[in-house]
């Protein structure tokens, strides 16, 4: 976007500034509505067990899966519950997957005295060849074997399997299917170019000055203070900025002060206090010019369990008076200019990465969309609020843009569905390590990365590279 329009006007930088500086009004907001209502539970009652989440997940997704099963294996396919299985009969069963993993961190093993084990260090992946898949429905469970990829799947997915029960009590799977893409939403997108900037992992408070320069360059580009007239007019087409989590760096999370004696830590301040002040100043610069949606992430000062509630506005005294600042939940769903956005700060994808053989963040993101659930591993390995009425992470409508933050690199893909769904999948990279943000064009659902870098101490100019 930028480089095509910038090149002809770059000559403008070589001449004296014009007497009347041109102004570029930012594109107005056509329509915005926040659809994240299900992610705000309202009440906060932790006196329940997690069995309710799994029960409503299965009950809520069962009709969709039965429909898909009939479509795939014939309308005369026999649907059975596990308690009604007969040995040798080919039938279809809908249930929740459970993966029994040897390396899965278990708090009971850690505190068990008879084992005398040191708690295992965190591993990048917890999969092992000896893992087993078990299918559970409301009453029973059965081990699965056959045409099902044990390494790839994770606990908590709702699946329909087709096969028969063997004599040894295991279920031999011949075929399986997921909920597939949810029904499509009507398209009301804009007819002219409009951009949404997606950035995540700003990583403030890490103590590194390099990342701050790139962040400042990003803010300057969006507010139109950088570049010649070509770039400024392009930046005026950015209608929104979404910051997808990890605004603070992991370094602000050190809890050494808890272990030290009180008299040593009396005058110290939590590292996150300074970092939030920096965040406030950056948000102030952005909010004066463009609507900003701030999603919390793994290291941000909000609750740990999903869905994470918005940051409190008392932490951002400079930026919160502006109506352009929207503090939103993680996951976040909204209609921006007629286009439905749905995204998370990446905890769901990185949790599936740890417990599955899938390595590519974009592949995992696509798989969650096809499985019909934003984060199937919650509440097993990812913290989750104990819902009881309904599971808000079930995908009921197909979004137009589906993103996840804090990925190791930028990737995007346009997925076409059989029922006319068009989804743009975007993995937003971690800004503090890659200095890359994404620009999504709402008119034709394309996405391009934009990279900022400074050349380091020996060269004093900060340069802006635009990467495609």
């Amino acid at each position: 976007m930028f480089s095509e329009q910038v090149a002809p006007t770059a000559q403008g930088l070589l001449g004296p500034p014009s007497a009347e500086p041109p102004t570029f009004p930012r594109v107005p907001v056509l329509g915005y509505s926040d659809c994240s209502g299900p992610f705000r539970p309202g009440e906060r009652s932790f006196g329940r067990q997690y069995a309710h989440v799994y029960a409503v997940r299965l009950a809520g997704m069962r009709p969709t899966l039965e429909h898909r099963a009939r479509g795939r294996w014939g309308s005369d396919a026999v649907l059975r519950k596990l308690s009604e299985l007969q040995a040798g009969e080919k039938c279809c069963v809908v249930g929740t997957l459970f993966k029994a993993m040897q390396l899965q961190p278990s708090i009971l093993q850690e505190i068990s005295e008879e084992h005398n084990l040191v708690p295992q260090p965190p591993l990048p992946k917890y999969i092992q060849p000896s893992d087993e898949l078990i299918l559970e429905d409301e009453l029973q469970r059965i081990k699965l074997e056959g045409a099902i990829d044990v390494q790839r799947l994770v606990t908590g997915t709702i699946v329909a399997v087709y096969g028969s029960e063997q004599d040894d009590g295991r279920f031999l799977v011949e075929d399986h299917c997921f909920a597939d893409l949810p029904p499509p939403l009507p398209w009301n997108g804009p007819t002219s170019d409009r951009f949404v900037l997606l950035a995540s992992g700003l990583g403030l408070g890490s103590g590194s000055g390099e990342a701050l320069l790139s962040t400042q360059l990003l803010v300057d580009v969006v507010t139109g203070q950088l570049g010649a007239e070509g770039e400024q007019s392009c930046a005026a087409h950015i209608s929104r900025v979404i910051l997808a989590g990890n605004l603070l760096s992991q370094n602000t999370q050190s809890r050494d002060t808890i272990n030290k004696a009180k008299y040593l830590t009396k005058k110290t301040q939590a590292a996150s206090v300074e970092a939030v002040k920096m965040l406030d100043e950056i948000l102030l610069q952005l909010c004066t010019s463009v609507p900003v949606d701030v999603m919390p992430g793994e290291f941000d000062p909000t609750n740990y369990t999903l869905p994470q509630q918005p940051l409190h506005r008392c932490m951002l005294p400079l930026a919160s008076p502006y109506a352009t600042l929207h503090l939103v939940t993680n996951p976040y769903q909204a209609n921006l200019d007629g286009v439905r956005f749905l995204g998370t700060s990446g905890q769901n994808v990185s949790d599936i990465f740890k417990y599955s053989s899938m390595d590519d963040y974009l592949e995992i993101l696509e798989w969650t969309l096809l499985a019909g659930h934003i984060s199937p591993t919650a509440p097993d390995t990812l913290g989750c609020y104990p819902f009881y009425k309904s599971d808000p992470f079930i995908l009921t409508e197909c979004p137009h843009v589906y993103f996840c933050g804090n990925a190791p690199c930028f990737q995007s893909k346009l997925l076409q569905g059989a029922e006319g769904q068009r989804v743009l999948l975007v993995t937003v990279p971690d800004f503090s390590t890659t200095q890359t943000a994404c620009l999504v064009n709402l008119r034709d659902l394309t996405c391009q990365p934009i990279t900022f870098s400074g050349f380091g101490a020996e060269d004093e100019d900060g340069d802006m590279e635009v990467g495609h």
Partner: protein
Amino acid sequence: MGGSRPVPGIAGAAASSMSRRAMGQPRRITDSFPRRRRRGPGRPPGRLKDKDKDKEEAQGKAKVRDRPRAAPQPPPDPALLEMLRRFDLCWEYGPCTGITRLQRWERAQALGLSPPGPIRDALLEHRDNPDVTYSLWHEYEL
């Protein structure tokens, strides 16, 4: 009326003295669980005992206060409680612990499992009786 439930208002009812076995009714697994005296809906959480004079007055007041509260509504009959207990133990409507029976009924209705209507009417009619609103395992935490 079955003698196995302590009637609210009688302080210190030794419920074990009127066991189900003595009454000739079939035994239950729950008979071996410790019986806990439940507080009625309107009983104060814990009155400070006055050290002197007002003790008798307070006791007199307690007796007077308890009797009218015992009958704002007729207590639910055991058949109703039995029906509610069976509703709790029905596996089709999902787990029953940690939520009230009305919440479970509403959830089953929303998921299209068609729970029986008379149960909801009974739950709304005896809304302030904790034996009716809470599930079978309400007193056992989590």
